[in-house]
């Protein structure tokens, strides 16, 4: 199978690799770069566990080819904490008990980070709409909404 050389800036570091055309971005992150914080929860881009930021926009990395990320900036959950300081969204999730098993959490947080980038004062309904593409089976979403509200207050 044809291989392609790609350069991707992942969490601020330039990374290069030879990848198969068919390699999914999520496998590139998890298996090539060993950034296993991004999870896989379905095969149909419904669950959002694999959400990362591609040039600032949330994407489901199980539905993006690694070659499509060539030249782009990718942020994963591992890139949220800066200089030993948690991102307000990470803080919100633990303060408000917005996670239980933790499997959907990285994707859920990346979607929330993107929401707060474009809207620093989202209503409850706007938060619920924003995370509608991320499934959580544990929390019932109530505390996730509170976590995002907590983070919104922090980033304002």
């Amino acid at each position, binding site marked *: 199978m044809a291989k392609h050389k790609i350069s991707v800036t992942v969490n601020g570091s330039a990374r290069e690799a030879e990848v198969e055309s068919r390699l999914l971005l999520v496998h590139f992150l*998890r298996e090539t770069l060993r950034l296993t914080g991004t999870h896989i929860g379905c095969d149909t881009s419904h669950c959002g566990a694999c959400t990362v930021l591609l040039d600032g926009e949330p994407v489901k990395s199980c539905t993006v080819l690694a070659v499509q990320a060539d030249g782009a900036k990718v942020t994963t959950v591992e890139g949220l904490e800066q200089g030993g300081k948690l991102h307000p969204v990470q803080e919100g999730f633990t303060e408000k008990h917005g996670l239980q098993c933790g499997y959907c959490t990285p994707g859920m*947080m990346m979607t929330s980070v993107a929401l707060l980038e474009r809207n620093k004062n989202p209503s409850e309904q706007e938060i619920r709409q924003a995370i509608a593409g991320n499934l959580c089976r544990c929390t019932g979403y109530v505390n996730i909404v509170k976590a995002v509200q907590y983070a919104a207050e922090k980033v304002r």
Partner: protein
Amino acid sequence: MELKTDAKISGMGHAMKRKEDPRLIRGQGRYVDDIQLPSMLYMDIVRSPYAYAKIKSINAEAALKIPGVLAVITGETLAKYNLHWMPTISSDTQMVLPTDTVMYQAQEVAAVIATERYVAADGVEAVEVDYEPLTPMVDPFKALAKGAPVLRTDKKDQKDNLAFHWEAGDRADTDQALAAAEVVVTENVYLPRIHVASMETCGCIADFDPAQGKLTVYMTTQAPHAVRTVFALVAGHVGLSEERIRIISPDIGGGFGGKVPVYPGYVIAVAASVVIGKPVKWIEDRMENLQADSFARDYHMKVDLGARKDGTMTALRIKTVADHGYSNASANPSKFPAGLFSICTGSYDLKHAFCEVDAAYTNKPPGGVAYRCSFRVTEAVHAIERATDALAQKLGMDPAELRMMNFIKPGQFPYKSVLGWEYDSGDYHTALKKAMDLIGYDGLRKEQAEKRQRGELMGIGVCSFTEIVGAGPSKHFDILGLKMFDSAEIRVHPTGKAIARFGTKSQGQGHETTYAQIIAEELGIPASDIQVEEGDTDTAPYGLGTYASRSTPTAGAAGAMAARKIRDKARKIAAHLLEVNEGDLEWEPGKFYVKGAPQKSKTIQECAFAAYTNHPQGMEAGMEAVHYYDPPNLTFPFGSYICVVDIDRGTGEVKVRRFVAVDDCGNIINPMIVDGQIHGGLTQGIGPALYEEISYDENGNISGGSFLDYYVPTAVETPNWETAKTVTPSPHHPLGAKGVGESATVGAPPAIANAVVDALRHLGVTHIDIPITPEKVWQILHEKGVAE
């Protein structure tokens, strides 16, 4: 609840932040698929497109030509080692891989082992299987009919498709009481097949080390110790012996009962690793997970509830046909093939009751698991709570009033139910009253009456459930002969910090936090100084695992008892250090002090240090304890839920406007975690109530086999759950706790179903099977001529 410790210690009742979170919010959790071992191989599975077919041939030639494909394993391969069949948890049998016939769609047919994940998938595509399709048996009623073709021809003594018959109660007495009842309501209530759909699917890495003859399996399992023993029993003949099997259950991305069974994939991966001598990873994809892993529910229940005209319930009879699929792979205790279904008299003081279950074999995947409920409690509660509403409707009574009238009264506890359970404690009236007050019940009934005048459809649903959780006691409960106790082992280090290990396994419930709080409560060592570990069979004491809300009732109790043993030893050391008699010492969380001279004291940390540096002559050094806790009874959490729904007359869509959940789980360890459990459980209640179902067409083709069709609720459909508590401690649990993880999954579906029927009851609707989809409601609205 009165707090005995301060926030620094964070014993019982503190909303301590979770110890699990720092790694999980950084993406540093360690789930099975995150683990990568040197020279690891990948396994992928060929699955059957047919529900029932003969396998004429399997041709692996093309697959084996693909560079990187190392092996294709079939039933014939496993048969050489006598590993092509395995026992289920319910002591039935199931194929690991078939040698001649497939019995359900998505059944494992062959496994491809390759050097890379994608190459293994290529291999699966290239394996050619020639099938001869047979006519599948999809309907469990037809399967049980006389003369139906027998599916399990592999079982010598099986002359029909009855997997088992089970009953509880006095049939003749109940028949008589129903015949004599002034009023009888009868409803056919179906709880469809659903799936736990945990966000992480199942998988494992089987790592056989040929040099040491040791097998390590990293595995998504809720019961690692039981799995180790089962592996040793099943594979003993190929040289796997229990001391050389290590099961490691790392971080688990949700279990809900779906990670209790041993699936064929695990066994094939183990066999592949043992034969090849390299680690083999197998991770299901979502479709495999939904289509082939154990389902839940699938109970067809005919419910008869008798009463006097004043509303006093007199008799209950439930006849059930259960669809178990191709094999009885229920995760039920041995003596209870229908689980704890006989809790079906619920919260009511019924004097006559009988229930029975006929379980059918069909051409569907085997099951069913106790999906977030203590062995068929969800089915039982749905039946009685729907029938109670039907009775209220027939008598023209308010459903809340009818419940209040029939509740077991607080003075009757401990209460012996007619079907044989001893309810430990309860106060059902207070819980329902609280829920009614919080939601403003009377006001809502007024609003409903006004809306009905205007033709608007609004419903109010009540459910007052009683659960039965925390199995053992071991004299009644075992799985494959393994008694259902659970365990804790605590070691306090010289500096007063501790490590504690348990026989259970958290899948998101927060055991690392709550177990630490239990020990903090008993020893006064800050919970933040206590490290909790589970899931590694080489280090943790033996236990039966986490499911059926049993962790707090069993392992949590074991933790408290082990801590008390340590406290007893610390008391001896403190007496030695203070040069007084043990009887002269008083305890407060964290220290012993001399009666009447509180300035003379020794902290638990000082006692721990002395246990390694200055212990009394004749006393063993060290400070550790282990306890295997066998509960004297089950615990009986309960609650009252009320919800309000609005129905769109144009689309048939049901919107849950408000939902108040009043839960009573006895004494609370961490109120933040308890609320989180209830929020999640409620959401897993609205799912099956309104959206989720796995169904089959007449050819046994699955629908609902991916997240395209299996509709897990998102944040948009999920309401803002309102929760409250009453506290009725368990009299027999050392901490007065009862367990809470599953209450809401059990209580929410009937509350929602009752609300929808309530919205339509003036039109003569008495029952709707869940999931109550817009399509079902739309059809009713059209039939009744009220559609918009």
